[in-house]
């Protein structure tokens, strides 16, 4: 039982928090700009490398540098929007998605060119977990990641529910046409969307790197579970994305627990397939997402 918590449930929560943060950006972009952004994974990767570079320069802790990363990444992402997405505001979704393929390749090659393709780590060596009650082993970094992620999700909630721009974002997600008739500055809302998405992507990238390592493919590798989290939660719905992220992360980790007999239920090599299977199931049976009813 204690193995279950130590090696499956806690890693699942950590991974789930990371997916949830990534999925917030995906789902906001989808709700407001109406396309699936395939470059979102690379945006997360970029956040991790920016933090790594600042760590080299300052020697500070990645979580202390995270706010700086968020600011820089937001600026970069807004620049990308202006150059690579703004020309397609009135284009069909297919064109914008293909454009996001192009951007994905460009960001990835820039990170590979700048930082090299080899794995790197925020903190060299292995951290010893804290042991609670003789058996419960939780490493401090896991506690930090989960708590920070929860705090960030509360911030997202606060922005969407209580600020003028957050409400305008939800309004535009509901109906872009009416938002325009209401006098909402849609380009400003789009900027805010990119900023919020980029901040959460920075956090997702940094937490993922903090939990394991930094690599140029890390973001693309979690792109599918991130999309899955957004779809499971009902695309365009940030709270659904948070719940979907946690659900997918925990399920992925629990899938390799020895539920029946001694061996893992599912070979760990197929872990990545779990999120996909859940996503397909949701797409077939509940395309509007698992959580109907109140949205946002």
């Amino acid at each position, binding site marked *: 039982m204690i193995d279950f918590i130590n090696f499956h449930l806690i890693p699942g929560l950590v991974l789930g928090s990371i997916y949830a943060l990534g999925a917030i950006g995906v789902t906001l972009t989808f709700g407001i700009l109406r396309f699936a952004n395939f470059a979102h994974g690379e945006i997360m990767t970029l956040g991790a490398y920016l933090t790594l570079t600042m760590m080299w320069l300052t020697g500070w802790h990645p979580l202390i540098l995270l706010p700086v990363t968020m600011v820089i990444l937001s600026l970069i992402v807004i620049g990308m929007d202006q150059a690579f997405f703004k020309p397609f505001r009135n284009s069909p979704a297919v064109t914008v998605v293909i454009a996001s393929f192009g951007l994905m390749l460009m960001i990835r090659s820039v990170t590979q060119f700048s930082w090299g393709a080899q794995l790197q780590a925020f903190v060299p060596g292995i951290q010893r977990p804290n042991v609670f009650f003789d058996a419960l082993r939780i490493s401090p970094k896991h506690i930090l990641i989960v708590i920070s992620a929860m705090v960030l999700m509360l911030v997202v909630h606060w922005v969407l529910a209580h600020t003028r721009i957050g*409400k305008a974002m939800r*309004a535009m997600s509901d109906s872009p046409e009416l*938002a325009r008739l*209401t*006098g909402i500055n849609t380009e400003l809302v789009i900027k805010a969307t990119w900023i919020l998405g980029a901040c959460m992507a920075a956090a997702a990238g940094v937490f993922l790197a903090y939990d394991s390592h930094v690599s140029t493919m890390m973001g693309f590798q979690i792109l599918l579970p991130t999309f899955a989290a957004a779809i499971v939660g009902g695309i365009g719905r940030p709270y659904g994305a948070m719940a979907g992220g946690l659900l997918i992360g925990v399920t992925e980790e629990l899938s390799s627990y020895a539920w029946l007999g001694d061996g893992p239920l599912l070979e760990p090599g197929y872990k990545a397939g779990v999120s996909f299977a859940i996503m397909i199931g949701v797409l077939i049976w509940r395309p509007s997402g698992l959580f109907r009813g109140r949205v*946002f």
Partner: protein
Amino acid sequence: MAILELENIHGGYGQTEILHDISMRVEPGEIVVIIGPNGAGKSTAMKSVFGLLNLTSGRILLDDVDITNTPPEKVVRQGVCYVPQTGNIFPNLSVHENLEMGAYVRQDDFSGRLDEIYELFPPLVEKRNLPAGTLSGGQRQMVAMGKALMLDPKILLLDEPSAGLSPKYRGEIFKVVRDINEAGTPILMVEQNAKQALGIADRAYILVDGKNRLDDTGKNLLANKEVAEMFLGGGKTEVKKPAVRKARGTPKT
């Protein structure tokens, strides 16, 4: 001096011309109604004020300022509010948030205005925290109008506010329209329910095939024989006229 004036406008969506030389005006304090058969260009004429179509000639004046082909987000800031026939609320935002969005372009404190709106639409008070999409049709119309009124506009444009409502709610909506007007807001309104609309209208325009056909006071038009034949079904309640089909791709008016 007219609040709003359309001078000989021609235009439509893209290349298709729908409005062929339409003129109308709204004086301060008036309720002006546009009626006409389906496809006559009623809604299109209204949308032209809001910069939603491409005008090829003619002018639109708001308080003597030319606003021809100004995009909607700017027209709002000039003090014109438009309530479309459908999709006129944000369904996932609460009633209160919908009203706040109505005041989006206001930089000042609008809490006083919020209270006034709730006074005008008492049923909304207890639903203020519910998603607007869960309300009944009539109450949604109230949210939509309340949202538009948050700006205290110079003129309010209403596109078939009674469409799809039960007769009971329909009467209520017409009463609300009159209340809004009595509180000082001029109204330009497109309506299918010609009889009721003419009943509250100061003046009305009848459009047919994208052209002005008749204009007069509401009372005179109600008494007009041609109007009675066209819309009032010989004194009974209104009868739907067969649709006048326009070129394919023309949005519903």
